[in-house]
């Protein structure tokens, strides 16, 4: 999943970036309001970490702009102020959660998991689909308690399709959310098909996966 980090403190931003990248997110950092606005206008992010005190304006402005669009992006407001008004205001404007500086990176990732799954209508951190269970925190998939060994990319694809179940996800969307904002024009998406083929093979060993649908020429869909 891809995440936009809006944070003017470059060190903190880089720290969060490294941590979340290692956790498996595709991240991008911007340092000010205008870049953030520009970025959310043209890219589809799964989540945004938004610092409120930015050099060229208030983070609330970015939040307002995002919520004016139809984007379902999850927004976690990060504030150094920690004041009650800020937190309430943020939630009123459509933030999904907030964190007060300083925060533990593990708490950040836990909250991120939580807002993302809630956003997609899941109540538990373990995503359940047709007998498969995906544990978001530790990248594990199991079928009735038998662990399934997936590569990171396979897990990411499976997770993204499960989160967006009942929707056709195009190959382009998969590249954007799992490989990140590739600048390459018309990068051939064969490699996605390879991952999906391997994923399906591994899942197919356990049960019939007719619900894992390939939409011809377009992409994939997991039906429930």
């Amino acid at each position: 999943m891809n995440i936009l980090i809006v944070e003017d403190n470059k060190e903190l931003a880089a720290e969060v970036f490294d941590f979340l990248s290692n956790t498996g997110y595709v991240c991008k950092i911007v340092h000010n309001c205008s870049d953030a606005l520009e970025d959310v206008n043209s890219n589809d992010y799964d989540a945004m970490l938004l610092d409120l005190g930015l050099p060229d304006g208030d983070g609330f402005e970015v939040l307002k702009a995002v919520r004016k669009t139809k984007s379902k992006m999850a927004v976690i407001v990060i504030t150094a102020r920690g004041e009650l008004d800020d937190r309430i205001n943020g939630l009123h404007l459509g933030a999904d959660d907030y964190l007060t500086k300083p925060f533990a990176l593990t708490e950040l990732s836990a909250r991120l998991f939580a807002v993302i799954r809630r956003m997609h209508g899941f109540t538990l951190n373990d995503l359940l689909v047709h007998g498969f269970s995906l544990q978001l925190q530790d990248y594990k998939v199991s079928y009735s308690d038998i662990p399934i060994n997936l590569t990171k990319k396979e897990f990411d694809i499976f997770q993204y399709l499960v989160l967006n179940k009942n929707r056709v996800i195009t190959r382009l969307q998969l590249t954007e959310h799992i490989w990140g904002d590739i600048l390459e024009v018309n990068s051939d998406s064969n490699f996605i098909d390879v991952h999906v083929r391997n994923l399906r093979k591994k899942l197919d060993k356990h049960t019939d996966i007719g619900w894992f649908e390939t939409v011809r020429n377009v992409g994939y869909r997991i039906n429930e």
Partner: protein
Amino acid sequence: MAIFNALTRLLVILVLWLMLPILVENVVYSHINNGLLEKKKKFIDHLNQEEINDFIENSGDSTETYSQFSTLHSEFLVLSKVPVKPRQKETTFSNDYRVIEGEENEYRILQYHFTYEKEGYQLEIGSDLSEVNDLTFIIRLFIIIVLVIILLVTFLADTVYIEYLLKPFYNIIDTKIRRVNEPETFDHTPIKAKSSDFMELDLVLNQMMDRIGELFKKEKQFISNVSHELLTPIALLKNKLENLLQNDSLDDNAVDKIASSLKTLDMLKKIINNLLLISRIENNQYTTEEEIHFYEIITDMQEDLQDRIEDKQIEFLNIMKHDFSFKGNKTLIHILIYNLITNAIKYNTPKGKITITDGFSDKHYFISIADSGIGMDPSQIGKIFSRFTRINSDQDGQGLGLTIADSIANFHHIEIKVTSVISEGTTFTLLFPETAKN
């Protein structure tokens, strides 16, 4: 400046010094000539036959010559009888040597031919030149000393004065022009100058910089406007089409069309993003303060691209030996290496090879990315860095990858060298500036 002045002065002095003998001689000779003419006039005026006879007979020798000279041989007068020659010039001046009483001296000599009672006579009046020559030499010496002194004094004065006068000028060049890379960092404080010219120059420079700064700002504004105005509708359309795809009542034909529209939109978005990236790089909108470790970047990238490498069954060999670090922009360097490696994958043959090597050549660190792909001929190599060129029209992509690579390399003062052999492969070499440290 002062040196130039001194040189021109030296030239003038040299010319003067060379012309001096001629000038002095002219003046001295005309002075002597006048004296000689006057003497001749006095002599001729008092002349009559008796006197001539007196002169000539008194001498009593067969040459019929009369001569008379001053005690120190500084002047002499000779009258002699010569045959009459028609069309002889009456008065001539010349320099010649004469021996008088066993002493040879150089004389300025006036020769005058005249006839008196049908007899031809030649009168010679001479004036000694040795004194004059001595005098000329002294004058030349004196003048040369004076001129050299003047030269030295004016040179010193010039140096000091020009230094003083031009101080604000160098100040302006240093603070207002040389140190300015971006209009935003321009220092507007006026520079103190004694002369109004430099204050004017300073003022005009400030105004010019303001205008350039304004244009810079406008361009940045334009870039950000374009990105906003173009990318927002694209994002909107993309969203709508993606939602449309969820509609189960669509037939295959409609789904195909939507899918291909989405692809076109994606292409459009990426082209815009790429062009924006190029103009941002060229506008110096990126900082270069991050420490970049190339070995790390390339191993990470190999991991990221593993699926694509495997998909084409390419053998990826990373035999870098150095952990070279470099100050630059991490995002940009990442894009640069990414573009080169994905190109190496894209234009490779199945089961081909990509080899990454590094080393030092002539103190410059280099990284080479070599593929065993289709290769290019020299005319193609010349074009690959310009916008929207592709080697084959049936290739994917829009031909911006290498343009971006080139912009990023330029931005970091990295040189990209390309060597290629058709159907053997292409090698891209990044040559780093000397300032980079190992």
